[in-house]
């Protein structure tokens, strides 16, 4: 469309006059179909580059900042890192985290007796990860959270706690610091980014019980 400067910093968009062939319409419908046909043929010979992902056979890999389902990390001795300080539940804008604290008889350490996240309330903002002073809660790149009852949306310690030495490097949203920040692995931006074929050995959910049902 021709644009005309009418004032400093202001342009007027003026519709172009229609030519005779455009007014007659039929030649233009053919021209329009040629544009569409060109795309069709181009795509037909470039099936690999089609901007379509055959989900769920093929999955897109999201960036290492992806805010998916949460996990609670564990110390080497198998206890959860969480010390039930209520920081995450305070920072949570959706009020979806419920914590009950207990005390270890032997070590006098505080730990969560109950740690529930209501995934239907959760807005996946990542504030819990930012608020945690103990490196205890991370977000994974797992985004498949379909459930069939509301009760199963509430995940507890059993579903959240991962085994010791669980590799947190390929996780999603996590505290960025030190080496991780410098490395700053970015995901793709849609097209041209890595895809994974099913089955996906590397992204099995940390605790498959969640998917089998409570």
């Amino acid at each position: 469309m021709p644009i005309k400067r009418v004032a400093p910093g202001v342009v007027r968009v003026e519709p172009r006059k229609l030519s005779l062939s455009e007014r007659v319409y039929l030649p233009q419908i053919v021209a329009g179909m040629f544009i569409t046909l060109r795309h069709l043929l181009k795509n037909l010979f470039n099936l690999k580059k089609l901007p379509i992902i055959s989900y769920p056979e093929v999955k897109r890999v999201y960036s290492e900042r992806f805010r998916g389902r949460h996990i609670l990390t564990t110390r080497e001795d198998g206890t959860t890192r969480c010390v039930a300080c209520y920081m995450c539940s305070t920072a949570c804008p959706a009020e979806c985290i419920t914590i009950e604290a207990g005390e270890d008889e032997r070590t006098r350490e505080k730990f969560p007796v109950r740690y529930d996240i209501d995934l239907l309330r959760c807005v996946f903002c990542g504030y819990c990860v930012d608020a945690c002073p103990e490196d205890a809660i991370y977000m994974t790149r797992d985004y498949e959270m379909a459930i069939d009852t509301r009760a199963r949306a509430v995940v507890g310690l059993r579903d959240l706690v991962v085994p010791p030495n669980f590799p947190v490097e390929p996780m999603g949203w996590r505290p960025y610091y030190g080496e991780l920040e410098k490395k700053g692995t970015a995901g793709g931006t849609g097209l041209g980014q890595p895809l994974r074929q099913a089955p996906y050995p590397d992204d099995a959910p940390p605790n498959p019980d969640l998917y089998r049902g409570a």
Partner: protein
Amino acid sequence: MSTLTRYSAIPYTGPAPTNREPYVPVEATKMDARGGELAGRLRVEQERGQDLPTLLVEKERIVEVLRALKEELRFTLPLDLWAVDYPNREKRFDVMYQLYSLDNNERVRLKVAVDEDESVDSSMAVYKGFDWFEREAYDMYGVRFAGHPNLRRILTHEAFQGHALRKDYDPAQRWLCTEKDVAKLIPKIDPRFENLDTDFERVTLNLGPSHPATHGTLRIVVTLDGEKIIGTEQEIGYLHRCFEKSCETHTYQQAIPFTDRLNYMSAIINNVGYCMAVEKLLGLEVPARAQYVRLVLSEFMRIADHLVCIGTNLVDMGALTNFWYLFQPREEIYGLIEACCGARLLPSYTRIGGLAVDVPPNFLEDAQRLVNMMPKYIDDVDNLVARNKIFLDRVVGVAPISAQDAIDFGFTGPCLRACGVPFDVRKATPYLGYETYEWDVPIADGGDTYARYLVRMEEMRQSLRILQQAIDRGLPPGPVMVDNPYVALPPKEKVYNEMESLIYHFKLIMHGIQPPVGETYFQVEGGNGELGFYIVSDGTKNPYRVRSRPPCFAIYQAYGQMITGQTIPDAIAALGSLNIIAGELDR
């Protein structure tokens, strides 16, 4: 009233004590001088130390003052009308008006103190655009506007009791709306068509609230005479979630995810607008790198917003290919956002004082790739439809609005620019360094659906111009968050290893950011027009009042007038071109 008293569980005891100095904006002296000038001319009182010229008007004189402001001082654009509740004051409510002068590029704010059992004269006789805003203030606060022709609830439903934004309203209450409570809407027949003598029977038809062409939960009731729409009535509020009340019950930082859900097509712009409003209140200077990233992502989001608007508008007219085709570049933009912050639609990327995390290392290359690919998509669609006879027949002259009417209704953004008024917040009051870039505000003539299409198309190209210049300048070095322990969370490694940082971390999460006592308004150019945030702080961790000025709200109230006399297919085409986003409309 009985229910309200029964549930009034929150005793409000006035502003909490704070040891912080009241907020005095930098430009206060200049604004006070201008405010004094206006106050002297209108013979009203003036409130000093505000970020805008602020006039205190007695409620008896408000219509007179508004008329003088509009006619003599050329404050023609009614931007916003809202209320604030101060239960401990003698006169409980402040009704606030904000006006803008297109000729002189200046703003003015009026405050009218009203008590619970008083009413204030409706300003609709002066500004048509305050129609829905007055209804909203009535709905949320119970402020009555004498002389308003249709003063009923707008965002909440008929079975709702009490007024949700009053300080003594318990936000935990729920009200059930059943079918028998729902008001039957009977559209008022437009006087032009009252005596229309046709053979057709008059039919009243419901469009929405869940109709595929409304792209959101909007309900439009139309009365048809044959195919001609002769009367309309709109009902909104289906997506109302009381964003403003939620902000009052959460901390400043926690409100950021809520702002995502206003205009969810361009969520980053909402994040930026809200954060900049709070930063203005705090007097914070955000690092250059954060400002740069905010600008780049805002422009990408604007393009994504317009792509969806044009795509869905075309799909309403049967051009499905364009819709799918335009979703591809949008998808790529969301990929870039996801690489930055881990979420696509609802990023919550900015924080008060900067950004949540730094951008990924390949940010600029990705941005450059997007800027390179975008023109092809825009041009292809332009070639397909801009001179297409079918498209032109559907859009040229459809649902036009004159520049005069658009200004009177409080239009901003592309819909106002399509009427030939070159008002853009990025030019009028530049923020984030927009003034340092070379770009133009596109306008078009006619104010019809076609003009809105042309303006949006050109705006995307202008955004690409800004982006190309920004990418050429490169990312400024430095941090993305201010170095202030009262605002920014300390780096995690320090939290794990240093006592001092751990204390700041705990303090900030538990007690939040506590801005000084005061009020401020900040505006950004959203995808649909001026998106403003008005924030009152009482010195505590929760905002006392957050008001968002939704551009859709002003635009959508003119929709009924725009489609009267047109047909249903035209109404659908016009609705798509206005780009009404229910999340922002209903808040």
